[in-house]
């Protein structure tokens, strides 16, 4: 690859990049706050002594949401150019799901 090509950005490009970076930062912080909040509710619901039948599904749901937020925001899936990673992760999840399904239904029935 050639390394000796330098690229000077125009004023517009500079401003555009700045705006995007700002927006990205705001998203990250918002999502981070949301995740802290979800974690807090999870802890609080255990602390409040609610029924396990309510708390367990709630925590699992929050966990799923957090995984999604993690992948889409902190690992940048929501941006362009991550299609392959998404495809592979979804394939893996699908294959893992069929395996778990099979284990539950035909081994441990």
């Amino acid at each position: 690859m050639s390394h000796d090509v330098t690229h000077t950005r125009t004023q517009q490009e500079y401003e555009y990049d700045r705006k995007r970076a700002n927006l990205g930062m705001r998203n990250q912080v918002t999502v981070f706050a949301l995740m802290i909040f979800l974690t807090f509710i999870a802890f609080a619901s255990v602390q409040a002594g609610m029924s396990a039948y309510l708390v367990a599904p709630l925590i699992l749901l929050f966990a799923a949401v957090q995984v999604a937020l993690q992948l889409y925001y902190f690992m940048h899936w929501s941006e362009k150019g991550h299609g392959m990673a998404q495809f592979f992760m979804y394939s893996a999840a699908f294959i893992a799901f069929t395996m778990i399904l099979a284990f539950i239904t035909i081994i441990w029935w």
Partner: protein
Amino acid sequence: MSSTAKKKGFGATIWDYLTTVDHKKIAVLYLIAGTLFFVIGGIEAMLIRIQLAEPNNDFVSAGLFNEIITMHGTTMIFLAAMPLLFAFMNAAVPLQIGARDVAFPFLNSLGFWLFLFGGLFLNLSWFLGGAPDAGWTSYASLSLASPTHGIDFYALGLQISGAGTLIAGINFLVTIINMRAPGMTYMRMPLFTWTTFVASALILFAFPPLTVGLFFMIFDRMFDANFFDHLNGGNTIIWEHLFWIFGHPEVYILVLPAFGLFSEIFATFSRKRLFGYSSMVFATILIGFLGFMVWAHHMFTVGLGPTANAIFAVATMAIAVPTGMKVFNWLLTIWGGNIKVTTPMLYGLGFIPSFVAGGVTGVMQASAPLDYQLHDSYFIVAHFHYVIVGGIVLALFAAAHYYWPLMFNQMLNETLGKITFVFFFVGFHCTFFIQHFLGLMGMPRRVFTYQGDQGWDLFNYISTIGAFLMAIGVILLVVNVIITAIKGEPAGRDPWKDGRTLEWAIPQPVPYYNFKQTPLVRGLDTFWIEKMEGNKEGMTYAEPISDIHMPNNSFIPFMISFGLFVAAFGALYHQDADKAWSLPVLIAGLAITFLSMIVRSLKDDLGYHIHKEELMNEKGGKK
């Protein structure tokens, strides 16, 4: 800096190969190691056939027979077929996509050394108290009861070489996703690259279940865990599931690249664009997906129940559809082509009927009620040898002839190649066709001998004769390699004259940096397009000549793998009360590995640049 074309001493050459990170040299390493294990596995096969040549034979004992069949299967699948495919992937894929190397050259070398040390470890079991003897599937209730260290060699050895395979697979995925030359869209990739891509994805998803299964096995045997021991609440069936969740995709990991190789060969020697390219790509991906949904067809007789059996039976039969698409596409590629029957093409023509026969018996076995009859009989042995030998080994031999000029700048002798084919092909059908009938007559697989006069004697004898014919074929191939090496005639660029893809556009011998200028890809069969437009250089370039960044050689991958090899001995003997040295060995081995990794992490290794001026002077690039 330039290290091309200097004559080196023997020691320097060895050191070069021990430290190389160049995909072309790693391809050679895979080829040599794979061939070595192929020969070992082949000798084991001959011993099996000699033992079974006549009833009540006592050529080998029952126990030794079990060790031989186990090592034959394990060696052939993990240590011969996979590495040999990796050899051709390494040799061709980066060139096909117009890349200067794989994405992670260091990891490429690490993958090879892990595989080699794992394989050596497994095979050393022969000299250290006995090889594994529970079959290549190593079903838990049998393998947990095995008294020698054989199964431990199996579990630890496969764990190490499996890590190498996983690394190699991930490396190819990243390479194919990220390193394609400008213009090389997914739908312009040659089919060998496509099948390598899908096979690598299968490696990524299929090897972790094997790793988990092997760890459970190691824990059960070494630390008295009870994953598979039903007396203590475990379940022996879990091993079978884990093994086959890996095992079925594994057969597609092997056969998809074989399909890819033949797709290249058919298109090249029919001098026609591959028929139905996009449906080929689609079929490859579909086979990859379905490959994960069918593992329980190996377990119909376990007692999963009619519902599970029915589901897996239908899923298995569904795979025949995309496979059939491929077969028809190959036929239609040849149809109306300007056919040149070279040695690789001859293998291709032999491959189609052989593989179809294996596929048909596969669909037969997929019908669960019939499989109750066929299971664990010689019919199964015939089936998987038809797909493995008739599919994969024929592809490997074809690729050896086809890619020899690319890898070594020499042509294997065509006449001898065709004679080799005849011996091997006739021997193959003679060995295995008749085994279908042995199976139907009731001969079980994995028996070390049988009573005479059940109608099996003659067929077994014929089968053994076939095995000898195959052995002659393999020896002829080796002779061919030696003759060619002695003659040492350079083959030059595009030696088949009909090359279609980028790997043939490069001057020979391939410069160590591959492409002086990254090529611009203008369609499927890039090189063909350029040739047809009268472009003597064979490539349109995407960039001006500029500095090339290259990675440095490294001995660290060897050391990392060697450390694990040493540690495995410590772990293995740690169970024996009288071997106090085992713990220090384990610790020393792990220390070697981790120290090497730390050195790698802390020491900056930024590689070097080949400068523009140097490239201009070098003749390799332009002629």
